[in-house]
């Protein structure tokens, strides 16, 4: 029977093409929209994670509490021991990157050695030089280097391109960092600017200075000490995993604190945060998820409305067929069931085509990207200027499910009219032709 009905569906273009186009368009839009939203949002999240928060972040609580002051004296010592502990006590698929967040005055001297310009900068020190370091790749530094090279020699730095512009410095310029050391003393150390970076994030382009981790440890007298351990998951992990792993690590940390490395201060309390705990990202993720469900919901609803009406139209179009089948003794339930199957089939087919179209579009946006630099430049958000969509399994599911759901429910709502149809009038109705 089902095969028989499908033959009819395919031959009767009018009852086939319209609903299938609706599902196709709807699903394509949802897939593309979700892909775009995911791309923008997750791009932002990843950017933030890579530059700033990690997916997980092990930090000394006293440092974290006054983070804005960059209290290097509350950094976490025993770098090597900590790494060993992390490697033994956390998931093997997390990679840990040591970082130092520092703040200092950047002093640019003129030819006579007098201050030409001076500005406070926020800096990050990361491992540029170890052969097994993934940081250069992680931050896409090679691709982002606008001019010059990366700081691979001693006491070299790269700075954001807008910062370079406002300081009016050129490559090779020697500058002095004035800051506070691990033990609270004043430090001054000379660096050479070797490269300009375009992070693609306006706030960072204006303020960021990157130096090597070892250089920073020398400059600020913090041997074997870092401010942060940033943990990175493979992309297959989702937010729920982050929280689970975080809780597990914190649990283990509690044990470790009982026998701490001897270099730790008595009141050092290392804690692990997930990205959701930082920069208000947790609530942003919640809002984002809500908006996403809302968008998907609206599309589902609209599709359902249209398909319902399509179902009603097709019901009129197939009035004779339905009447005949009722007269021939097909039960109302069976009739509606077969219509539901037809709806399911149209939903699946439309969803597949929709996924292909929406997916292709999303894939294009993912690979090529859309330059929105002007639109975002004033927002100060950590959004990459080039927006890339993101093609995820999730995105497809969020398209397919509403596609199928709306097709089936739309058809079923429309076919409820069949129940109202009384057999007593079938003869007369069928006589009318």
């Amino acid at each position, binding site marked *: *029977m089902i095969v*028989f009905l499908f033959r009819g569906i395919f031959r*009767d273009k009018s009852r086939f093409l319209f609903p299938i186009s609706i599902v196709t368009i709807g699903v394509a839009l949802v897939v593309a929209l979700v892909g775009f939203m995911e791309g923008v949002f997750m791009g932002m999240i990843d950017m933030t994670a890579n530059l700033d928060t990690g997916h997980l972040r092990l930090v000394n609580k006293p440092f974290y509490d006054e983070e804005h002051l960059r209290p290097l004296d509350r950094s976490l010592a025993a770098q090597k021991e900590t790494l060993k502990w992390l490697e033994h006590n956390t998931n093997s698929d997390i990679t840990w990157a040591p970082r130092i967040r520092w703040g200092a005055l950047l002093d640019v001297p003129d030819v006579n050695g007098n201050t030409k310009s001076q500005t406070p900068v926020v800096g990050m020190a990361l491992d540029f030089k170890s052969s097994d370091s993934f940081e250069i790749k992680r931050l896409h530094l090679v691709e982002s280097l606008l001019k010059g090279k990366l700081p691979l020699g001693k006491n070299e730095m790269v700075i954001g391109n807008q910062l370079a512009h406002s300081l009016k410095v050129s490559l090779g310029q020697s500058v002095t960092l004035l800051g506070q050391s691990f033990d609270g003393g004043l430090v001054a150390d000379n660096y050479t600017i070797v490269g300009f970076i375009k992070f693609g994030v306006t706030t960072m382009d204006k303020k960021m200075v990157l130096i090597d981790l070892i250089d920073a440890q020398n400059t600020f007298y913090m041997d074997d000490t870092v401010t942060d351990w940033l943990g990175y998951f493979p992309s297959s992990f989702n937010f729920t995993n982050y929280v689970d792993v975080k809780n597990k690590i914190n649990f283990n940390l509690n044990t470790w604190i009982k026998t701490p490395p001897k270099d730790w201060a008595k009141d050092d309390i290392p804690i692990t945060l997930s990205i959701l705990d930082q920069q208000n990202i947790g609530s942003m993720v919640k809002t984002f998820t809500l908006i996403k469900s809302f968008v998907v919901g609206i599309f589902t609803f609209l599709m359902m409305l249209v398909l319902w009406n399509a179902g009603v139209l097709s019901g009129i179009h197939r009035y004779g067929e339905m009447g*005949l089948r009722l007269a*021939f003794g*097909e039960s109302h339930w069976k009739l509606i069931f077969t219509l539901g199957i037809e709806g399911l089939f149209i939903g699946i087919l439309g969803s597949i085509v929709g996924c292909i179209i929406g997916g292709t579009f999303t894939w294009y946006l993912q690979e090529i990207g859309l330059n929105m630099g002007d639109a975002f430049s004033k927002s100060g958000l950590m959004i990459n200027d080039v927006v890339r969509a993101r093609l995820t399994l999730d995105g497809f599911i969020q398209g397919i499910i509403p596609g199928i759901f709306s097709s089936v429910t739309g058809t079923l709502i429309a076919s409820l009219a069949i129940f109202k149809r009384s*057999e007593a009038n079938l003869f007369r109705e069928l006589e009318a*032709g």
Partner: protein
Amino acid sequence: MNNKLISFHEVSKIFKVGDENFTALRDINLEIKTGSFMSFVGPSGSGKTTLLNLIGGLDVPTSGDIFFKDIKLSSLSRNMMAKYRRENIGFIFQTYNLLPVYSVYENILLPLLLNGLKENTVRERVIDIVSKVGLLDQIKKKPSQLSGGQCQRVAIARALVKDPLLILADEPTANLDSKNSLQILELMKELNQQYKAAVVFSTHDEKVTRYIDREIGLEDGKIIFDK
């Protein structure tokens, strides 16, 4: 052997039209035997369609009882009534009501599929009946490619293919010219003898008389003759 197929006991059908009651059938007593070939004749509005509706289990009487063999139709649920039609009744309509997207073959296949049979088990049966109604060379065509007489032949084959005990035809020849009408009647008669299905049809065409075993005259919802 008891060859009583349908029996009516004091059956009346009253329609409510606004506040008025309209009596379409009045105290009908009637028996239809298996394998019979009979017709209801009468002017428009005399109650022919209403009567066929009741026999076919599409409607229920306002009073009185209708039996199919020993089963009281009015006691059946909506689903059981559908089953009754599905298994026992073949319908033929004045306007053929073939499904336009399906071929002759598929139109005839439909009632078998509705009865839960698989296409590959009944292919022969469909082809056989198509040849009986003389349309073997049209079997792949769509209804729109056929003449009215050919369409009604397809409808006859469709009604017969599931081997029903009873075929109900409401003015099957009304849309056909007299030559085609006679051919259709001859065909129905022939198949009635071959298949042993009772054929009950309605008409207001007096010409048909010479084909039928029994003619029941209706007027104003009452039987005025039965011969």
